[in-house]
């Protein structure tokens, strides 16, 4: 099994990893970098639990071949709180509005939402629902998640939303 060395930015830090070339970005994050937030809910891009942000876009990391991450910028759930530990507005609003129940979909859900708010800080409900249409949730019925994303958008100014890597 051939190995590949990739250098990229991970949650604001320059990193290098050497992993088997067949690994996905998800497997690399979880097993090489021990970042457990992104989850393997299905492994075939059909559930959204593995969603992370690459160069500003939400992607299914389970389908992202690791060689392609070279030179790119990756953000995961572990990287959106501020350096001093303050929760990102989305993390706060999900806790406040019960947007998280069992929590398995939460990492992916928040990253999809963050990608939306980074590009569109004042989304409509339909835009919010579209942004998380690729994230399945069985616990919440989505309603309190959509509300939480709206709350984070309303209660924060753009600086707060973007002020985290």
């Amino acid at each position: 099994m051939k190995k590949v060395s990739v250098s990229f930015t991970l949650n604001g830090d320059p990193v290098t990893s050497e992993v088997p070339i067949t690994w996905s970005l998800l497997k690399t994050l979880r097993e090489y970098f021990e970042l457990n937030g992104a989850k393997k809910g299905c492994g075939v891009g059909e559930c959204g639990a593995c969603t992370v942000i690459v160069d500003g876009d939400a992607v299914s990391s389970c389908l992202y071949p690791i060689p392609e991450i070279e030179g790119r910028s990756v953000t995961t759930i572990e990287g959106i709180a501020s350096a001093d530990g303050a929760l990102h507005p989305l993390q706060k609003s999900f806790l406040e509005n019960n947007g998280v129940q069992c929590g398995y979909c939460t990492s992916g859900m928040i990253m999809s939402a963050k990608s939306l708010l980074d590009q569109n800080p004042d989304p409509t409900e339909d835009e919010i629902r579209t942004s998380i249409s690729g994230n399945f949730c069985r616990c919440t019925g989505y309603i309190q998640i959509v509300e939480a994303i709206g709350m984070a958008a309303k209660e924060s100014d753009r600086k707060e939303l973007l002020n985290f890597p």
Partner: protein
Amino acid sequence: MSEYLYVGKSIPRTIETDKVTGRAIYIDDLKRPGMLYGKILYSKYAHAKIKNIDKSKAEKLPGVRAILTGYDIPDVRVGFIKDQTVLKRDVVRQFRDEVAAVAAISPEIAEEALDLIKVEYEELPAVFDPVEAMKEGAPLVHEVDARGRPLKSNLLPLPWKFYAGDIETGRKASAYTVKDSVSTTWVNQCCMGPSGCVAEFDMNNNLTLYDQTNVIHLGKQRIMEYFAQIGLKGKKVRVVNTIVGGSFGTKLDTDIYEFICMQLALKTRKPVKILFSREEEFFALPPRQPAIFDIEQGCDKEGRLTFRKCEAILDNGAYTSWGATTPSVMMMPMSSLYRVPNVSFEATCVYTNNIYCQAMRGYGNPQASFAVETSMDTLAEEAGIDPAEFRLINRNQSGDETPQRLKITSCGMEECINSVKEKLDWDKKKKDKKKARGVGMASLIHVAGGARVYMSDGHGIMIKVDQNGWIDVFESGTDQGQGSPTVISQIVAEALGFKPEDVSLTMGDTGLSLWDAGTHASRHTFMAGNAAIRCCEKVKKQILDMAVQYMPKLIKGGFKRKKRKDPDFVEPDLDYSLISNPENLDIKDRMVFPRSDPDHPYFKMDVREIVRSGLHVGVGDSRVVVAEEFYDPPTEMLDREMKGNLSMTYAFGTTGVEVEVDEETGEITILKLIAAHDVGKAINPTLLLGQVYGAVYTGVGYGLTEEIKVVNGRVMNPSFRDYKMLTAKDVIPITPVVIEPGDEDGPFGAKGIGEPGLVPTAPAIANAIYDAIGVRITDLPITPEKILTALNNKQ
């Protein structure tokens, strides 16, 4: 009830911050030193003899540490009626039969090894329809029972029968009767977190099972029973849950993969993790129990129900888990949803070579309520009575004792029906009918104050307060995401007089808890809450005993220090008798105070000062503050006639739906959905709404889009792409109505809510569709194709 500081408030889930920071450890994330990965080889046939298993090639694959077949482990029977073994010998009876298991150093190697195991089968005739399976001459799924006695038919030795009153008397008293046949199919629980566990034995063969179960204590007993039969009698078991990615009924049984995991761990002497793929979640996990109902009801001229008679056939699949016990829960809506004097309910479970079933949110109630509420609507129509009015005429009321001897205490059904009527503008919509638009409703009854399905329905809790005033709660239940840590910390804070942020909880660990029957039947808040309140009384007493001892010392000590600083200070003359009796003291929001003078300038003291002074102070004087309480409510076990008040109280609710039907495509749009629920009291309103929303969404899926397609025993749609669970773009406009009549037995008046949100959703939708276009679909899910076919047939 604004007298409460924390109960009734929507406290955020700060206690679960790990879930939004990626730090929560689910079974996927758990690693144990030297851990191996287990994978299961499943059968290639629905019914076949196993002629030979050749694992020689697989064993040689580098990285493989063990391969087990049914011939390598003791052939011990497990399950509710002990009709299956952990790995199968001689015969496979369904596609998901576990034929071999591999443990290897990586999941990829384990999977590769599976491909190298060669199994020779000889196919046997199979049966895939329960009605066919009941006929004489049908292939037998099981040849012998658990005791080796030959079986003559595919009928399970579980004839469910419930009779109350007399059906013929009821028929004679009827002015109108109706007969309906309805059916429900398999649906998947769709937990986002896949099933899995890690089994680890110590050097003496005591087991730690890292698990996701709802029933840590009962599960432990089942494992110990299994151990006794495989040469591990007397070995200890500890079940420890990780954070759980949803359960919805999947984790009430000890599943075959858990036993397999233990066997692999035993063989390799290493921790072994089995983690299901999403595909396995769909084809190898028991889903919701399907059922076929024939139901007959009657009412008199005034619209009062006279009788309800129902026969159900349940496709049991090849083996038996909790699916076969759903009739015991079905008896509740059959006998007690609305007032009905004469009831007959019989359910037959039949073996087939299909997949077998377990619990799913509602546990038989959604299926049975679909039957009852379909019949209620057809009967209302037959009697010429408005469906809402019909339900009001027959509504359950406080003080009722139902034919199942359920004692109805708090009951908000009338309010639920009326609020649905009001919010749907029911009367107007019925009068001014718009084309292809309609309204419908359905109600529910569910246990909401525990459920005595086992001899003990108790919950044991231990609460300790340390010298910093921090509270540790050792809870015996489990959490699957509903928010118990937040809710219980609110209850403890309120009952003890502290703040919710003072509370830390442990749950889901048999080694750190007393005992609980399990987090099922929507019982957790009721049971743990009541146990907590009673326990807090004991803890409070200990603190107040300490307060009586230490408050005067602390106050006088403070005066002494003041005097030293300021010689002119005059010590006030205080009436210390106010704080000399613990019965006269109370704690609220971390402050101890005398009841008779709550704002006393000197006698109101931070409780943390008291515990800091009162614990660990010297020889013979050191103490801890701790108490335990085992709350087992004064309910009844069901007797031989399946009657008894098995719960302290019952939940009621009504769902009302307005739909629009596209008569060209058969598609349904839900314009409005009102979910009215009598919850007693909402401990945390936001968390409660989350339970309702999630359950309603699952109910809409049950009604309209979800089905596991099983063809000749094989699951044909084992993926999220082909199993139609709803997405965030499938908007359901839900208006929740929370009705709080209180409940004298619930913790701060609360009743269970976990399952009720789901139960009446599908029948409400079916009834609304009938109102819209005059066709009644009687088998779920109600797909556009069924609507179009029915519309065609109507013309």
